[in-house]
């Protein structure tokens, strides 16, 4: 076993109380195997990497257990207690890391050759052989023309290329163990597929053990041999990847699986868990099973005693008293797509809209070349219709949203709301537009003024000029909006910093609903959320349509989510709409090569279908 954890417990002292951030963790990674660590934010999955690197935040410490690493000489060392100098020799050499943010992990002031060379120097490679070794390593991660990359700086490479450089660096020392913490989260879907493919191949060729930390159960099922699911610092399920992802036994793993909208097959309403994972401070107050408060199948016993990991099948462990006896919940009703009224004036028509950002003038007044963020995009949304806009980063989809909302003025084309041309701003067109359209922003952290309490956030429009609502009316409206978006009424005087991510996003939606718009424009509103919270928000959007017939332009990079919500979709690439049509039709038979590549890049649910796709298909999507 390359790495073995036995009873590893990490604790923090918070407000005088000892809290187990990671409790009693057991696992083992065999040489050449991949172990997946799956959990939502706050589950403690990143703690293991921090224990390895001894970079626990101040106040956190390993309070019991051991983490044994098998050295190449056959001796096993406990990484928790091994002396610092020996640990630093192991790290970077025998144990390598692949970080989450490739762009920030590389020094922006050093060329690729300089950084890589520095790493090789540490490994003791003589200077004369470094350059050749770098080229060889870069070729191994399939970077085209590695010689030309040597003199480049990180900012001249794409995120995916940077990540490949980092993977090449990680594998350069032929380590026994590679720890990858969310290595693809910051990347586009098609890049993710390439990265996973490269990582898997290198890991197999070098017989390296890989610890793959991710929030994505579907991806973990593809990449890993074994999966360990963490909830609130505890392992709730551990077993072979196929068993854990296809037939999970713990109610939490089941919920995780159910919260992921499927890419094919019939759509059913996502089953969601109530609330969200408790925060660190709340861990101390959890009695018995840490999952019990959210568990759909809990009984009186769950809150009283903490269950232990039980083996339910060979190699498959579950921490639940009822793990075997409770069958998987019955499949929920098939989701009926609400068909939009085909008649009537479309709420929104976007005609060949374009946006060119002019270049900066230099001191002689000459303009540098501008950027075409959106070259030409058209879109029609009928009342109550959900339309998806799919594209990867840089496709112009966010600019399209800002053009629709009038936050940017188009440099070409027209925008019509209820048949009236609102392309050019102005007092009247603005009133027409903002009466019918509202926007939900991507990042609630940035979209909610931290100095406003919830009540004043959601009713902000009633503060605008021309609205003379009384305080009592505002309060009444705020209560209504909280009710509609499923927020508990006591949150009304809280501030954004006191809300969880899911609650913030609901406030964000509630604010957009205040003027009772007929169409919401939502820009990547679930991409920052955990899967279980994402499912809650998606269902909320469906409920809003059912209750008030509000339409939606849903901008996302996630095909599964778009398929779940939208009846029609457009696919954007490099500022152009490359495909448009009924969602089901596009999923069944994508016409454009890019759409096909995009679909091939998303890991399918069916583990028997091969993934990642071959390199040619990926190149088509990335290019």
């Amino acid at each position, binding site marked *: 076993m390359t790495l073995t954890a036995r009873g590893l417990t990490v604790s*923090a002292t*918070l407000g005088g109380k000892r809290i187990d951030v990671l409790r009693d963790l057991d696992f083992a990674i065999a040489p050449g195997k991949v172990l997946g660590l799956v959990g939502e934010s706050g589950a403690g999955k990143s703690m293991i990497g921090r224990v390895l690197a001894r970079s626990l*935040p*101040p*106040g*956190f410490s390993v309070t019991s257990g051991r983490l044994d690493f098998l050295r190449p000489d056959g001796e096993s060392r406990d990484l928790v207690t091994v002396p610092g100098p020996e640990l630093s020799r192991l790290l970077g050499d025998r144990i390598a890391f692949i970080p989450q943010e490739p762009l920030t992990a590389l020094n922006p002031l050093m060329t690729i050759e300089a950084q890589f060379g520095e790493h090789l120097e540490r490994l003791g490679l003589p200077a004369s052989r470094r350059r050749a070794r770098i080229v060889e390593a870069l070729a191994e991660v399939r970077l085209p023309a590695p010689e030309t990359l040597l003199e480049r700086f990180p900012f001249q490479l794409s995120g995916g290329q940077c990540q490949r450089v980092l993977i090449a660096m990680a594998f350069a020392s032929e380590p026994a163990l590679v720890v990858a913490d969310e290595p693809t989260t910051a990347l586009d879907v098609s890049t993710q597929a390439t990265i996973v493919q490269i990582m898997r191949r290198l890991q197999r060729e070098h017989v390296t053990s890989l610890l793959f930390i991710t929030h994505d159960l579907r991806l973990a099922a593809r990449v890993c041999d074994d999966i360990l699911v963490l909830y609130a610092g505890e392992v709730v399920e551990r077993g072979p990847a196929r068993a854990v992802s296809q037939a999970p036994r713990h109610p939490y793993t089941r919920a995780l699986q159910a919260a992921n909208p499927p890419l094919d097959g019939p759509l059913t309403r996502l089953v969601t868990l109530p609330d969200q994972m408790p925060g*660190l401070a709340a861990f101390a107050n959890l009695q018995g099973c840490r999952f019990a408060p959210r568990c759909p199948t809990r009984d009186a016993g769950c809150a009283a005693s903490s269950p232990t990991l039980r083996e339910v099948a060979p190699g498959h462990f579950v921490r639940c008293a009822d793990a075997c006896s409770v069958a998987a919940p019955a499949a929920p009703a098939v989701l009926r797509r609400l068909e939009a009224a085909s008649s009537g004036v479309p709420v929104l028509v976007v005609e060949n809209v374009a946006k060119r950002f002019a270049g900066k003038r230099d001191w002689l007044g000459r303009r540098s070349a501008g950027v075409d963020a959106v070259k030409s995009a058209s879109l029609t949304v009928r009342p109550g219709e959900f339309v998806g806009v799919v594209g990867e980063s840089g496709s112009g989809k966010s600019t399209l949203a*800002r053009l629709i*909302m009038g*936050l940017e003025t188009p440099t070409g084309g027209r925008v019509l709301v209820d048949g009236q041309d609102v392309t050019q701003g102005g007092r009247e067109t*603005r*009133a027409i537009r*903002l009466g019918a359209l*509202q*926007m939900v*922003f*991507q*990042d609630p952290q*940035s*979209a*909610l*003024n*931290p*100095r406003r*309490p919830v009540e004043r956030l959601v009713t*902000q*429009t009633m*503060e*605008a*000029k*021309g*609205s003379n609502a009384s305080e009592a009316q505002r309060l009444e409206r705020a209560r209504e909006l909280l009710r509609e978006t499923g927020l508990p009424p006591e949150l009304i*005087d809280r*501030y954004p*910093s*006191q809300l969880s991510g899911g609650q913030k996003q609901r406030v964000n939606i509630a*604010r957009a609903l*205040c003027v009772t718009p007929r169409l919401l424009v939502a820009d990547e509103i679930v991409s920052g959320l955990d899967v279980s919270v994402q499912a809650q928000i998606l269902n909320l959007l469906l409920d809003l349509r059912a209750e008030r017939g509000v339409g939606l332009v849903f901008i996302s990079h996630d095909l599964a989510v778009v398929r779940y919500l939208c009846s029609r979709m457009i696919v954007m690439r490099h500022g152009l709409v490359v495909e448009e049509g009924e969602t089901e039709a596009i999923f069944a038979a994508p016409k454009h090569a890019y759409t096909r590549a995009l679909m091939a890049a998303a890991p399918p649910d069916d583990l028997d279908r091969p993934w990642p796709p071959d390199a040619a298909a990926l190149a088509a999507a990335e290019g």
Partner: protein
Amino acid sequence: MRLSPRARAAWLRCLTDPRVVTGGLLILSIATLGLLAPWIAPHDPQEQDLLATLMPPAWAVGGEARFPFGTDTLGRCIASRLLYGARIALYVSVTAATGAMLLGTLLAILAAYFGGWVDWLISRAVDVWMAFPPVVLALILLVGMGAGVNKVILAIILIDWTRFCRVIRSEALVVMVRDYIAAARLAGFGHRQIMLKEMLPAMIPLVITMMSIEMGIAVIVEAIMSFVGLSVEPDVPAWGVMIADARQTMHQAPWGVILPVGAIFLTVLGFNLLGDGLRRALDARLVLSRAVATP
């Protein structure tokens, strides 16, 4: 008034910061002494006692209890003059800093909000303005406008608004790209509403911090201007005037210079401690980096 948890935490950080507490107490006591001057000063600050000139402080050899800090060349009570001088110093610092703050913040927010040529114009004005050495600029302004304490205040405002403008503009630019500004626009807010209700509140911590530092600067500038005779009338007790009067007899009676210099020193120290403490307690970046370090 209902405080947001953020504001409450900021207050708490301020009140537990040793710099803020020390600086605050210093300024508070100086202000109290200045305000109570007519009641606690042992003498009228202009009252001359030509029989008791250049008296040393009460505790020194030859000192008398009726002149606690001694007298100057005209036999005026130094303690009383110091107390009255505090009034001038604080009056100038508060009004000048407020004025510079208002002008600088207004232009900064306008520049950041409208961008384009408005920003260009304001930023270039700041650049040009800052290229003048401040003391020379102050002298030129005062020569042009004539002497007087209110002219000094005006001069400080006209010189130091650039300091506010530059720092607050960069902070406002950070806020401008926040989505909540776009959200406010979509909520139907007008320009003025966005600037006052969404942007300005985010600037307040920085504005408070800069005000405090600016007040310290204003005390020094006023003292310099009094020293060269461009500020108050010669018969008004100001710390700069006291230093100017006492410098001829500095060797016989050093306390005549040391005491007003000490008063200026304590006041400026107070404002600087306060400013530095407030900056540490209110600056989101510093607070954030500490919060990460101690979860």
